[in-house]
């Protein structure tokens, strides 16, 4: 069977959609989990802090590929059948949450101690201070590095091809085998990632600059 250039492109676009979807899911779920993890990481309760720290160290200190294998094969050991899609989304969520929590912790800790003291002196509780005073300020600082990190998530989705999830890289691999034109196909795959990532990098760069000008 022969593939025209358009056949290749059409199939890659389908794969690109899955890459995009997986990135969005990982980023959204990772964001929510990352926020909870952040709260635990800066909690006054030491056991929570230690747990959160351990989790973050674990996921920052191991390759994403291993995390993916652990989730994919680990859950299967429990007798539960996981689809590659679910395993990929879970692993990327875990990975993303650990990094976002750590990025955001830095932003929260950059808010001056005087802000805490002023708000606590007004009888606000720790959570009220976080919600109304510290997080709104930390969020502004966090936007640029968060968008910057989303680039890592998009590129990270490529490893899910290993467990058979048909996103952009996997689609590219199959097309390369079928067409015997690996250079052209992988070139297009790379271009696909670039088209997703470049606007994000650009946005992060712009946001960073805008923040520096006003600060």
């Amino acid at each position, binding site marked *: 069977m022969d593939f025209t250039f358009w056949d290749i492109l059409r199939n890659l676009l389908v794969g690109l959609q899955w890459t995009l979807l997986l990135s969005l899911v990982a980023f959204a779920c990772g964001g929510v989990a990352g926020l909870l993890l952040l709260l635990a990481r800066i909690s006054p309760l030491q056991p929570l802090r230690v747990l959160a720290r351990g989790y973050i160290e674990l996921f920052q200190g191991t390759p994403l590929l291993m995390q993916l294998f652990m989730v994919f094969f680990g859950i299967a050991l429990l007798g539960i059948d996981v689809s590659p899609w679910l395993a990929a989304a879970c692993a990327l969520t875990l990975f993303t949450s650990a990094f976002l929590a750590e990025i955001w912790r830095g932003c929260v800790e950059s808010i001056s101690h005087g802000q805490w003291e002023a708000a606590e002196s*007004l009888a*606000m509780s720790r959570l009220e201070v976080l919600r109304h005073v510290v997080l709104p300020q930390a969020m502004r600082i966090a936007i640029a590095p968060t968008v910057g990190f989303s680039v890592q998530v998009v590129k990270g989705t490529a490893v899910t091809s290993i467990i058979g999830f048909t996103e952009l890289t996997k689609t590219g691999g199959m097309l390369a085998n079928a067409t015997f034109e690996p250079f052209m196909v992988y070139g297009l795959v790379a271009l696909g990632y670039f088209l997703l990532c470049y606007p994000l990098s650009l946005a992060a760069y712009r946001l960073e600059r805008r923040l520096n000008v006003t600060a």
Partner: protein
Amino acid sequence: MSLLNVTALHKYYGDNHVLKGIDLKVEEGEVVAIIGRSGSGKSTLLRTLNGLESINDGVIEVDGDYIDAARADLRSLRQKVGMVFQQFNLFPHLSVGENIMLAPQVVKKMGRDDAQQLARQMLERVGLGEKFDAFPERLSGGQQQRVAIARALAMSPRVLLCDEITSALDPELVNEVLAVVKQLASEGMTLIMVTHEMRFAREVGDKLVFMHQGKVHEVGDPKQLFAEPQTAELRQFIGSINF
């Protein structure tokens, strides 16, 4: 019964014994000025009074709320004890009005309209009625500090703690802040202030507390103490300051 009672208060930073058994009574409507060299423990003492610093021994009691080494009653106590800081610490992401409205809304569950009305009243009180919608960064240091005072007053505290509130200001801005404090004193507000403004302490203060090496070294009427210090340390301290 005094409004604020401090009994046998001890505070350590590690091995460093910074407050060595403080006893202090403050009556309703009294203006107390705490003076002393840097490192004498005066700011630390002030910060223990609303629980910003924990204490290792002793009791602080304000109008029925207690702090001891176990750190109790903070939510209730802090509604009675307001604080203004050297560095103003306004919330930069909120307008002046919102800075003042936040705690009444969040802590006292006041409605938005009531909180807004309250904030406008408090701003009038410190002479900044027209700055409701301005952001803190647009204000001078003196104006920011007056907003910080208005923010503390909005919680209707029984006592206001002032921690060197004019020390970060340019000299020409000091008086507008002191004028507000003086006005509060004349309205009967209970004030405890750590200050380097000796002239102000003498004119407006009802009680002068001289701290030395973590203890209340001398306490009494400001005019009398400035005129006739009883201890060599206070005499030396007063001599070392121009005012």
